[in-house]
């Protein structure tokens, strides 16, 4: 067995050294009746070639995004990631190491995390950021819990533009913790309603911008409503790249900015692993969840980095911890920070502009078709369309024409309503030909 260095001779010698006759002696502590005397009923070990064949067969039963004209977003985005990013994150020293508990031999990871935190803070225009959450949705749940701790209140208000999966995730976590969720009805643009929903019991107002419909929102009014009521404004986002072009939440009064970072550096990978970005104000940092890298010096006075403020965390504070998170999205943060470093402000802005232009071109092309209505008033690279038919049927029909046309909003809720609404996204990976193909196919399908 190729991953096991011990030979049978080794095993015999070691058993002898241990003073055991057989492995059964070492498992003596296990109740007899629970010990299996043979392998379970699953296939036996196989060589690389055989396993590779099997996995390749499974992979071939999927239709990869890149083999179609691809316009699916709704919280995960297909972007080009430079080849060097994947090369770097596969370096043994990054890939096969653990959380940097021994900082003297983990400066690589720690410095990269410190750089990541700074980049996230800069991108969102916030003061500080943590070393990542599992993904955008769990990060949003953590933000709700954090707001409740900061405000010592229990009411969480969510905009109707929040991604339904995010809403469900927040709802689940908050219900577990005993908070009250006030979810506004699904709406493309509900800025005023959100502001109105804030009251003196409110711990947090959660808005997403861009939201699931692609809508981008001026958060200033909501921020002042929230702050006026003593609540925190939690600003989510579905697509981190947007901040290369749109005003970041941090510049509009958000107290916590949280969202999905996948679109920078990370593959679609059918939904995970992704990376949750989490930024907040310095004054709240001791209530923040997750790891934090910080600067310090070594015994010789040289600059170095460590994990810090760990008295917030489960391994020190146990049931009083700010979160139960332990393992986070380590390697995805590395991919994120490496990609962001390759982009820099200049590259990021250009990339964001290309995305926006592709989406504008797509919106023009699709809304030129009879019966197609654009619902999203302001957007970055994604928007919602009202179609004259059920969106799921349209998506299936488009697929037979080589186009993956987007996500039926109704798929995300399963609840009645919005059956004709299609969420559509374009990125720098879409060519003008893709867009023309989509428009042609949609015209056909709707004809």
């Amino acid at each position, binding site marked *: 067995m190729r*991953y*096991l*260095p*011990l030979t049978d001779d080794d095993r015999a010698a070691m*058993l002898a050294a241990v003073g055991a006759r057989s*492995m059964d002696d070492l*498992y003596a502590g*296990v109740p007899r009746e*629970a010990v*299996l005397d043979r*392998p*379970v009923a*699953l296939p036996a*070990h196989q060589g*690389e070639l055989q396993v590779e064949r099997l996995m*390749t067969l499974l*992979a*071939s039963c*999927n*239709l990869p*995004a890149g083999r179609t004209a691809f316009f699916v977003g709704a*919280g995960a985005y297909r972007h080009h990631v*430079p080849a060097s990013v994947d090369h*770097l994150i596969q*370096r*043994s*020293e*990054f890939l*096969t*190491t*653990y959380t940097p508990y021994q900082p003297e*031999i*983990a400066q*690589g990871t720690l410095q990269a995390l410190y750089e990541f935190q*700074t980049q996230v803070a800069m991108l969102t225009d916030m003061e*500080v950021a943590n070393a990542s959450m*599992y993904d955008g949705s769990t990060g949003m749940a953590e933000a709700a819990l954090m707001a409740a701790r900061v405000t010592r209140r229990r009411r969480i208000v969510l905009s109707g533009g929040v991604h339904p999966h995010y809403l469900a995730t927040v709802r*689940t976590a908050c219900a577990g913790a005993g908070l009250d969720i006030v979810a506004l009805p699904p709406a493309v643009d509900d800025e005023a309603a959100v502001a109105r929903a804030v009251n003196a019991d409110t711990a947090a107002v959660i808005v997403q911008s861009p939201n699931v419909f692609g809508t981008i929102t001026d958060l200033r009014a909501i921020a002042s409503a929230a702050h006026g009521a003593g609540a925190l404004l939690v600003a989510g986002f579905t697509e981190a790249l947007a901040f290369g*072009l*749109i*005003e970041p939440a941090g510049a509009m009064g958000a107290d916590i900015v949280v969202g999905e970072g996948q679109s920078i550096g990370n593959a*679609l990978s059918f939904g995970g*692993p992704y990376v949750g970005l989490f930024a907040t104000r310095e004054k709240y940092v001791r209530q923040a969840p997750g790891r934090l890298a910080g600067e310090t010096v*070594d*015994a010789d006075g040289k600059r170095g980095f460590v994990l810090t403020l760990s008295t917030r965390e489960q*391994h020190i504070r*146990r049931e009083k911890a700010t979160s139960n998170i332990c*393992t986070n*999205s380590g390697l995805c943060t*590395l991919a994120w920070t490496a990609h*962001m470093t*390759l*982009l*820099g*402000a200049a*590259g990021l802005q*250009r*990339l964001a502009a290309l995305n*926006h232009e592709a989406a*504008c071109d797509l919106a023009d092309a699709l809304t030129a078709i009879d019966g197609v209505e654009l619902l999203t008033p302001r957007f970055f690279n994604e928007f919602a369309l009202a179609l004259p038919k059920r969106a799921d049927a349209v998506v299936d029909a488009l697929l037979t024409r080589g186009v993956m046309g987007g996500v039926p909003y109704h798929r995300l809720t399963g609840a009645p309503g919005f059956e004709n609404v299609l969420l559509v996204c374009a990125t720098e990976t879409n060519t003008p030909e893709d867009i023309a193909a989509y428009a042609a196919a949609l015209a056909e399908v709707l004809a």
Partner: protein
Amino acid sequence: MTTTVSGNRGLLQAENLIFEIGSETRTGVDLPAPKGRSDRLGGLKRTAPLPLPGLSEPEAVRHYVRLSQKNYAIDLGFFPLGSCTMKHNPRLNERMARLEGFADLHPLQPEQTVQGALMLMEELSRWLVTLTGMEAVALSPKAGAHGEACGMLAIKAAIVARGEGETRKRVLVPSSAHGTNPATAAACGFIVDEIKGDADGRVDLVDVTEKLGPDVAAIMMTNPNTCGLFEPDIRKIADMVHAAGGYFYCDGANYNAIVGRVRPGDLGVDAMHINLHKTFSTPHGGGGPGAGPTVLSAALAPFAPVPYLVRDGETLRLVETESGADPDARPFGRMCAFHGQMGMYVRALTYMLSHGADGLRQVAEDAVLNANYLLARLKGHFGAPFGDRPCMHEVLLDDSTLKPHGVETVDLAKALIDEGYHPMTTYFPLVVHGALLIEPTETESKAELDRFANVLIALAERAKTDAAHFKAAPRLAPLRRLDETRAARQPKLRWRPEEALRAAAE
């Protein structure tokens, strides 16, 4: 000591922060120029500064390669970090995860285009359920702690379904538990009640008996436990908890010691997370990502969260919303957007297929044998609180033989760094003072274990006469001991542009 002008030391390269070496105008990507068409931003164009530095590709590659060489890693040497299961991460797993058919797949593509991905999830579920002897598995949790939450929320849902939601709120957690256990219980709205350990490193049966009652929702136990021991009374405890109307959550972080030899389902477990990044070899990546699929008993299976997988004849589909659930399912909610850590599923299944049922059993045995071998070699030289009987996959030592000479756990750890080893887990579990928790895993050779044991024994000898050596360690690492107190007292969590100005002014 040889000093250098450059700040480098031979191959070890000094490397500044990207903020100090990059600039906002430099970039490592080439993108076509935007056309400059009118925007649809509704006036929300960014006005905030965007001081993100860019690097050309050569500079960026060099930056991260230099940083990487300041890390220790499994691929570099022995990494016996107890409880963390730093085993070899096969490269085939990485290659499979990058197959276009897995990596370039959107979670919300039409289901007919992702049948291979769903088959993979089905197959992974089959392996997990068969190996553990449980009823079902919720794949979506994103790490161990997330899996704990999944299990505890399923328990909560079951209790609420029984109408006991307001009365059963207490969760028993041993003092030896990993911090995530109490943290999870609290985050799920339970009240944590700590139970003691006995002198043998196990859960105190008497304490459990006394604390059980109609308000107990669950016990959270780790098995094999964090002292590296199998809980011998586990079946009895499970029965007692069940008899009292509670559920048994098992922390499966140490499942690697028994995979293929013992099925948690046979021990009365109701829920258990499986860290794919421990038992099933997916890489830790410097802190993640992990994956924490959670197996459930028949009692809890109906409450599994969405999404879950359903087979309709030849095709598979995901139930993604609570309203879409089957009549007999009562999902307690959703753990995260999308379907969990697909990239880790691919790696874990690749590993399972590679090892097979026979190989996984051998994995457990070799892990246990390696640990016992180290125990045998080391117990004469270090305190070994429970060293009088076999351990499972971990050896728990302490610093009791070192302390009289002024050397404690942290000092030994730092001296090991100079010797080229990653230290073991230190000061955990909390039930043992100055704990040294060593987990060799099955992917270490006897030669590597012998070398490590020799070094530890030599250090134990040296400690008797030369505490200064330990206090000053490490000397050979990229940095000397770091001032963690200062980091926490004056937190500096990011670089700021002012630093550049200050540096320039100086």
